[in-house]
């Protein structure tokens, strides 16, 4: 069965550094991948989408890469700030169906 893996342990980084979150998948061939941010007590908020034929996407301080050979997506936040602290979810999509990973909790330390 398809499996989506994100770091289950929280990621702690110093303010100003680049945070890198990983999303690995098996037994799946997604046509696209989305990244969402989820704050405590709130629903996920869409951040970025990358398609299977794209290698990299950028939006302000965010960068996403998508390697279909490695079956992996990396999500980078440059010049991280305490306000970036949240749980980040990757979601793999094919046709209209999207499947979410378990999320990685990011803590940016001032």
């Amino acid at each position, binding site marked *: 069965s398809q499996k*989506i893996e994100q770091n*289950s342990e929280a990621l702690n980084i110093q303010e100003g550094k680049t945070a890198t979150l990983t999303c690995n998948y098996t037994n799946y061939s997604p*046509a*696209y991948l*989305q990244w969402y941010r989820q704050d405590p*007590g*709130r*629903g*996920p*908020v*869409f951040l970025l*989408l990358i*398609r299977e034929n794209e290698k990299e996407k950028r939006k302000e301080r965010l960068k996403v890469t998508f390697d279909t050979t490695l079956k992996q997506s990396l999500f980078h936040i440059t010049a991280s700030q305490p306000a970036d602290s949240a749980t980040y*979810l990757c*979601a793999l*999509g094919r*046709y*209209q*169906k*999207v*499947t*979410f*990973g*378990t*999320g990685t909790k990011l803590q940016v330390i001032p």
Partner: protein
Amino acid sequence: EAGVAQSPRYKIIEKRQSVAFWCNPISGHATLYWYQQILGQGPKLLIQFQNNGVVDDSQLPKDRFSAERLKGVDSTLKIQPAKLEDSAVYLCASSLKGEYQETQYFGPGTRLLVL
């Protein structure tokens, strides 16, 4: 633009009781989703509506869960009877047309605790 509204925000019930959650999607959005998010896990799709028709309910435990979307706008998700393992956050999301690669907009969720 108003976001996705959900109520109640919190609910505590005894096992074997019934409970209902309500969702009002973003105006004009044809597609509505209900997700279950257990603590420490990602959202799991329970049911997807396109207008008032069901597109996908393959992961909905139909012996106890039911959902409807009358008139293709608001939706209600019901659990009857509830089990301990139903304790979770129930998220409602909507999208404009439910098309390929489309962004989903989530509500704040309803946190359910079954005792």
